[in-house]
């Protein structure tokens, strides 16, 4: 199992480097421009459109949280859903899952290895992004001091890992449950988009308040309070529970799945 995890991580080396460096560049640009952009944007704080995309313009710290933390978790969420639906359903569609299933590996080991590897990959990307962006923040602090400690910023960014593992496990579950990757990716994308915008909309419209609790993004704080108070334990607990629930469900359906057949796992043959 360890060998499969190593292989899965190794096969994503380019993704780790590419996404890691890309997110460092993305975050660094926004951090370095934060004072200037914040000054320009804060006069428009009442515009709902900013709330819709989750921008907090009450302070430069809020602005950095709502841009850098939120967008990095959003972009890595996209990577998570692409990779997680590809890792089971995609391999089945490609035909390589049949090779793995014919090896002396229990199915739970195949699924767990792939899930663990993907979580590790996202963690490594976050480490690179966190290190680079923390360095950028430290540099900005020299000219434009803000009330964010580098360690607090770093841990806040790494704190998006439970959110991302939630998406990863949801994608792996859908890949094990749905007939093929196309359907799994479609359902995942719909939920992901709805979750992101649904959470922000729920702060604009009171009637959508209950919707907020169905959105995974709701459980990752991207306001300035995260820098002062840290990651909320209750949020992390919810995200880890969601991750565990989807992991168990994925295991259940993957064990029942007829690999290579491309059908719903509960759809069993009928003898005529």
């Amino acid at each position: 199992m360890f060998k499969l995890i190593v292989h899965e991580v190794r096969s994503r080396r380019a993704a780790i480097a590419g996404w890691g460096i890309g997110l460092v560049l993305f975050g660094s640009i926004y951090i370095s421009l934060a004072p200037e952009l914040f000054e320009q944007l804060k006069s428009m704080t009442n515009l709902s459109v900013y709330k819709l995309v989750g921008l907090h313009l009450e302070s430069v710290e809020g602005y950095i949280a709502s841009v850098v933390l939120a967008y990095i978790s959003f972009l890595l969420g996209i990577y998570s859903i692409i990779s997680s639906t590809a890792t089971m359903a995609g391999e089945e569609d490609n035909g390589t899952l049949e090779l793995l299933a014919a090896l002396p590996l229990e199915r739970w080991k195949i699924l767990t290895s792939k899930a663990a590897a993907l979580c590790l990959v996202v963690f490594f990307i976050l480490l690179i992004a966190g290190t680079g962006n923390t360095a950028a923040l430290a540099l900005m602090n020299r000219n434009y001091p803000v009330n964010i400690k580098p360690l607090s910023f770093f841990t806040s960014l790494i704190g998006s890992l439970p959110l991302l593992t939630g998406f990863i496990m949801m994608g792996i579950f859908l890949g094990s449950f749905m007939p093929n990757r196309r359907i799994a990716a479609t359902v995942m994308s719909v939920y992901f988009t709805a979750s992101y915008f649904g959470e922000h909309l729920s702060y604009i419209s009171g009637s959508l308040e209950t919707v907020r609790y169905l959105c995974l993004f709701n459980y990752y704080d991207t306001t300035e309070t995260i820098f002062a108070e840290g990651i909320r334990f209750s949020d992390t607990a919810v995200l880890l529970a969601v991750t565990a629930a989807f992991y168990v469900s994925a295991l259940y359906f993957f064990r029942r799945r007829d690999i290579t057949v491309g059908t719903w796992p509960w759809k069993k043959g009928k003898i005529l």
Partner: protein
Amino acid sequence: MESDTIIQTENLSVYYGTHRGIRNLDLSVRKGEVFGFLGPNGAGKTTTLRVLLDIIHPTKGNASMFGLDCQKNGAAIRKRVSYLPGELHLYPSMRADYFFDLFASLQDGRPDPAFLAELLERLDLDPSGRIKEYSHGNKQKIGIITAFMGKPDLLILDEPTIALDPLVRQTVLDLVREVKNEGRTVFFSSHNLQEVQSICDRVGIIQEGELIRTEKTETLINRQLKRITIAFRQTPPRGAFAIEGVKETGRDKNTISFEIRSNLELLMEQAASHGITDIETKTVSLEEIFLALYSRGIPGDSEGDTNV
């Protein structure tokens, strides 16, 4: 003590929805034999292999290998089995040598490096390239090497020689013979009847999901279809040999050719009454038998040990 039976299925059926995969398959493969599994596209060959490897689940019936239930002991069984899928899909960006190393480690053992080198040399494959750079035939060689390198107790090969040139094909057949000589077992699913005839001890023929014949290759060839040409002193009149199971396939002066499925004795009695001057028998290939069986829409003409 381990049973002499390596693969056993009982009443094994797989349905995809209401579409038939295999139906009531009773199959037995013995230790140390090369078992040929024959059938046209869609007959259920690959479905059977996938059930054995626990890749798909049966709708009904049981399958066991090495005396262990395939559904309950899949991983333990697969420790002793190598599988070459009929539709081989590899990881395109992976180097072939890394692929061998990875799969050897996942097969719970490292291959003897000398044996791996020997396989690479015999199949003429340079493993330093990325898989996507290889031709279709060379990708098939990678699959073959992966299947053989761990020296498993049972090799399940689904169309192993597809896309290979005749020389490499021969090498693969030699490798199969060597496996058999070492007392290991091969389950050989193929369309290529000449290959099956040349290496298989027994064959199972599957049609529309049902096993219609299991027999020793030699027996099947000898028993099923005979071709005889008899030269007579005087030409017998047309219709002289209206015997069930005997078909007149040609006449040339005093010579008549027959295709015989049964009643050989009766034919010889009747032929003798017309004065026989010469008899010539022809060997019939497995391919001809296979085509004859299919053209008659079996099951039916069975003398074979179908449920062996």
